[in-house]
């Protein structure tokens, strides 16, 4: 006999609940931080994580993973990969790191909430590994862009973005603060471990890592795949929690938490993943359209997971299908037009070949989004670059903080979803964003969008320069420009010449 198997002692290590005697249990586990649903603690003690790991295994496996992830980096610093990198792909990296690095770090504190306030000992132990995983993700995704900061200041946003009030950051922070940082341990795990990590971060792995490999960016592809292998483990905290909720008559509450979180994160992921897949990645390196990808990986798989757990398909599923056709196309147009406000260089990337591809993947694209780009293309062909910058201030959704924008062209539906609450008028991009507000108006009612801040005196006076400075542009780095210096219109010149 030598060493015991993990299964021999594992249950003892997760038998750590006791009955407090010096302090009431509700003080050690306040409902607003732990379980606001009043589910008996014996029920939480049935929590059984599908994936098990010991500390001993964890440090060994993770050490090995890190040695492979970081060794690629050593090779990278000798390679010329970034010397003549396509700016479309560079934009993917800049957007990704700026959006993700410090969010991963915040996830450490989110996991720590489960370690401290999770009502189940299993949850507390598993979240301890989850917390370490998130530290890994933050540190990897700071280390790699730091390698690039001497080439291009826009990579400084990997560290700085979350400390600025850039409009894109305000949207990310609002969602992350809402579903991840300001929830009790139980609701948090349903929202983040299940809806966000199980439901949506697959997008990043399968979507971006395949594209990264196609781009020859093996560092990034490896890193994302490696991160996702951690995610696949700690995301499994969510489903046992949902099962316990359902078994204890809290299906409605679990359903709402899942649906709120999924929609919130979807609105952001369509930007950080959808736009890169359909626009920033050079045509020849694209492997799937965002829509194909969403239907394969999200519409089918996530829905099945939700129903397998005993929940229902989210009520807004049809609206999601519609949003998949539109949201990221709208935002590509908006972000490109407002390119000086972002920290990456978004390519318009709608030359003749790209448009053909978009029309094939999204039938009707030419008659809708195409009309928007027709005007821009025409202006660029005639040397009126200044006309490609918008003049009107957009209306911002009071939930997702993203400019409200609708499909242009024949089927134009001018939708402004509004809500009056305590004398203030709120605007929403979609029904689910408005619905989320109504689930808890007190939680959301005070927040000011970037545009509200121009009128509230927070940005005073709201000149363009002041607004840009407020957003960190010209402070952290220069703002964006067209990533391909408008070379994508050249194809139309050739066409015209022919």
């Amino acid at each position, binding site marked *: 006999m*030598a*060493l*015991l198997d993990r299964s*021999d*002692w594992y249950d*003892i*290590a997760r*038998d*750590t609940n*006791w009955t*407090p*005697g*010096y*302090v009431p249990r509700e003080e*050690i586990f306040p409902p*607003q*931080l732990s379980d606001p649903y009043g589910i008996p603690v014996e029920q939480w003690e049935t929590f059984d994580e599908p994936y098990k790991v*010991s*500390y*001993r295994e964890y*440090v*060994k496996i*993770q*050490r090995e993973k890190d040695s492979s992830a*970081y060794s690629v980096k050593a090779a990278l610093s000798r390679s010329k990969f970034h010397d003549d990198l396509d700016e479309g792909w560079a934009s993917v990296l800049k957007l990704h790191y700026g959006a993700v690095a*410090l969010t991963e*770090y915040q996830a*450490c*504190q989110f996991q*720590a909430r489960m370690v*401290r306030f999770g009502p189940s*000992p299993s949850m507390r132990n598993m979240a*301890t590994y989850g*917390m*370490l995983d998130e*530290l*890994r993700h933050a*540190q990897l995704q*700071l*280390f790699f862009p*730091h390698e690039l*900061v*001497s080439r291009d*200041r826009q990579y*400084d946003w990997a*560290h*700085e973005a979350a*400390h600025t009030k850039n409009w894109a950051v305000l949207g990310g922070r*609002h969602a992350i603060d809402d579903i991840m*940082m*300001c*929830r009790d341990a139980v609701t948090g795990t349903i929202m983040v471990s299940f809806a966000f990590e199980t439901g949506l971060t697959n997008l990043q792995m399968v979507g971006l890592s395949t594209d990264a490999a196609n781009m020859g960016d093996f560092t990034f592809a490896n890193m994302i795949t490696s991160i996702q292998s951690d995610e696949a483990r700690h995301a499994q905290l969510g489903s046992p929690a949902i099962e316990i909720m359902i078994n204890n008559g809290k299906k409605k509450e679990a359903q709402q938490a899942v649906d709120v979180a999924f929609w919130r994160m979807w609105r952001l992921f369509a930007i950080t993943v959808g736009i890169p897949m359909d626009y920033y990645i050079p045509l020849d390196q694209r492997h799937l359209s965002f829509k194909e990808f969403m239907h394969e990986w999200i519409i089918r798989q996530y829905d099945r997971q939700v129903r397998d757990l005993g929940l229902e398909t989210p009520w807004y599923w049809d609206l999601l299908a519609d949003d998949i056709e539109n949201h990221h196309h709208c935002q590509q147009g908006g972000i490109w037009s407002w390119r000086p406000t972002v920290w990456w260089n978004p390519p318009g990337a709608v030359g003749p070949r790209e448009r053909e591809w978009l029309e094939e993947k999204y039938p009707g694209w030419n008659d809708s989004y195409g009309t928007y780009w027709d005007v821009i293309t025409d202006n660029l062909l005639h040397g009126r670059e200044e006309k490609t910058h918008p003049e009107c201030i957009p209306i911002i959704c009071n939930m997702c903080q993203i400019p409200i924008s609708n499909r242009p062209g024949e089927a134009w539906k001018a939708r402004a979803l509004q809500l009056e609450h305590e004398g203030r008028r709120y605007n929403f991009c979609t029904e689910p964003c408005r619905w989320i507000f109504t689930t808890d108006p*007190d*939680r959301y009612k*005070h*927040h000011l969008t970037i545009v509200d801040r121009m009128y509230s005196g927070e940005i005073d006076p709201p000149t363009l320069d002041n607004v840009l400075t407020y957003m960190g542009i*010209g*402070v952290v*780095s*220069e703002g964006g420009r067209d990533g391909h210096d408008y070379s994508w219109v050249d194809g139309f010149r050739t066409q015209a010449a022919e």
Partner: protein
Amino acid sequence: MTDAPDLKPLKTWSHLAGQRRRPSEYEIVSTNLLWSTDDELPWSLSPDMDMNQWYLKYRDGSPLKHVDWDAFRDPDGLVYRTYNILQDGQEAYVDGLLDEHNASGHDAELSAGWLDSLALLYTPARYMLHAVQMSSAYLVQMAPASTIVNCAMLQAADQLRWVSRTAYRTKELSLTAPDKGFGDKERALWENDPAWQGFRELMERALVAYDWGEQFVALNLVAKPAIDEAFVRQLGQAAHRAGDGLLRQLLDAQQADSVRARNWSAALVALALQTDGNKQVLADWVAKWAPLGDAASDAFCAALPDAGDAAAQAKDEAEAFRAGLGLGR
């Protein structure tokens, strides 16, 4: 723009560009990572929402003040990558200990009396260590700088390490001595036996010390030092006297993690003491919590076989640690 900053190329993150040294990997991936400390309102939801109120009260409203908590640095400079390298090595060593002692029939040689002591004083410790894991995780949520958060994070992980190894030994001992209640009686002993009531009271009360600074004092300056001295050191010496070489060596390995905890605790106290008024705040908390630590050491050490002056030693050593930080009573 009239006052456009100089956007010349960077050699490192802009926030580290002012320092003269080239930043280390530790600094690049560990510093200034919290966004909730940037503005007056921690989270971008309503100010009166309970989580904003919680952070405003227990973190930003703490009597422990510093203008720049982000100046804190872990003296061990650990990052995730190096932590795993370190602990994989340490765990390989522990695997070796367990394997070796198992092969040599170590447990069969233990006396019945010592097995009773292990059942009473060793295996119930997983509850205590888990409470330290939870308490450390509270600091992860509440500390006002990422460099402090990270130290608390690795400290929480270290506790899970010893919860796991204690569970391992609990199982192994139950195989050798099925009649001693290993794996069975620990919760009842933790909840009722006089030997544990001091530590239980200390940890239950520490868990609800919600001010982040007070949590740090209760946990890192009182509870952990008491555990290090009474449980790790004095129980280790008792193990040595009883011929239990395995437990002695396991506890020595556990001590190595505690050394890191003391290193960062000392560094944090040193940083805090730069601010006028903090010395009194810390001293008041020490005065409040140290008696609970002493009582825990007294109760635990009284149950050690041939204890001698174990309790006095444990209390003196914990006090000496605090005195070394300028916080002696």
